[in-house]
C-alpha cells in the first residue's frame, strides 16, 4: 500500500545517490558540478519529503529534478561562455573511475555521447542508463512523446555514425598497440 509508506530521507539517499550523481555527471560532464547538483537535489527532496507518496514516486521525482537541475547548470555555464563537455576525462579524475568500470569501447561510446546535443543526450541517458521507455522519458523530461522519440532516434543515429568512424580508428589503434 502506497499510503502506508513513510519516506526515510537517509534510505532514499542510500538508494538513489548513485542514480542522481550519474545522471548529473553524464549531463554536465563535471564531477564537481554533478556532486553539487546531487546535493541540491537531495536538499530539495528533503523539503518535499512530505509529498513523496511511494518509492517509485521518489525515484521519478529524483530523476525529474536531477535532469532539470542539470539543464539549469548547463544553461548557466553556457551564459558564462564555458563548454562543460571539453572532455569528461579532463574533469576531476573522471577518466580513472570510468576506466575502472567500463570497457575501453564503452569509454569511447560514453565520450561520444558527451558530444551530442543536450536534448538527445538527456533522452539517451534516460533510455540506456535508466532503462526507461520513451513514455517514461517524456514524463521525466516533461516533453511530448513524439519529441522524445525523435530525439532518441536522431541521437542514436548520430551516435552510430560517430561510432562507425570513431571506433574504426579505435580498433586500428588497438591493433597497432597489440602488434607493437
Amino acid at each position: 500500500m502506497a499510503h502506508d509508506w513513510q519516506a526515510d530521507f537517509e534510505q532514499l539517499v542510500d538508494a538513489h545517490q548513485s542514480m542522481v550523481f550519474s545522471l548529473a555527471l553524464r549531463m554536465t560532464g563535471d564531477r564537481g558540478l554533478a556532486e553539487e547538483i546531487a546535493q541540491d537535489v537531495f536538499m530539495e527532496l528533503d523539503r518535499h519529503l512530505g509529498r513523496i507518496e511511494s518509492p517509485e514516486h521518489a525515484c521519478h521525482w529524483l530523476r525529474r529534478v536531477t535532469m532539470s537541475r542539470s539543464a539549469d547548470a548547463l544553461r548557466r555555464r553556457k551564459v558564462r561562455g564555458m563548454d562543460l563537455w571539453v572532455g569528461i576525462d579532463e574533469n576531476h579524475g573522471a577518466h580513472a573511475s570510468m576506466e575502472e568500470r567500463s570497457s575501453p569501447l564503452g569509454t569511447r561510446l560514453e565520450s561520444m555521447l558527451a558530444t551530442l546535443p543536450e536534448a538527445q543526450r538527456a533522452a539517451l541517458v534516460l533510455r540506456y542508463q535508466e532503462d526507461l521507455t520513451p513514455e517514461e522519458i517524456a514524463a521525466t523530461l516533461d516533453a511530448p512523446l513524439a519529441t522524445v522519440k525523435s530525439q532518441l532516434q536522431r541521437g542514436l543515429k548520430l551516435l552510430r555514425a560517430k561510432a562507425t568512424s570513431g571506433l574504426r580508428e579505435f580498433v586500428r589503434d588497438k591493433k597497432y598497440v597489440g602488434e607493437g
Partner: protein
Amino acid sequence: MWEKVEPMDDFEQELAQALVRRPAPPSLKRKIMARRSEHGPRRPAMPWQRLAAGVVLAAMLGGGVLWRQLVEERRKGEAAREQVLTALRITGHALNDVNSRLASRRSEQR
C-alpha cells in the same frame, strides 16, 4: 524498437553497458547529511498543524471580511446622517421662509 520487450541490438547493448550507473563519491552522503543537519530536519506538517494553520487563515479571512463590512456600514451611516441633516436644513429654511411671509402679510393687514 523502443518497447522493453524487444531486444536491443549489439550497439544499443554496448551503449547500455557503457552507461551503467557510476558509484557516487563516498563523501556525497556525508555532505548531504551535514547540509541537512545545518538546516535542521524538516518534517512534514502534522495534521493538527495543518488544521491549526487552516483555522488561523480562516479566522484572518473572516476577520478581514467582518472589518470590511463594519467600515462599509459606518460609511453608509455617515452618509445617511448627512442626508438627514441636509433635509433638516432645507426644512428649516422653508419654515423660515413661510414665517417671514406670514409676518409680512400681517404687517400689511394692519
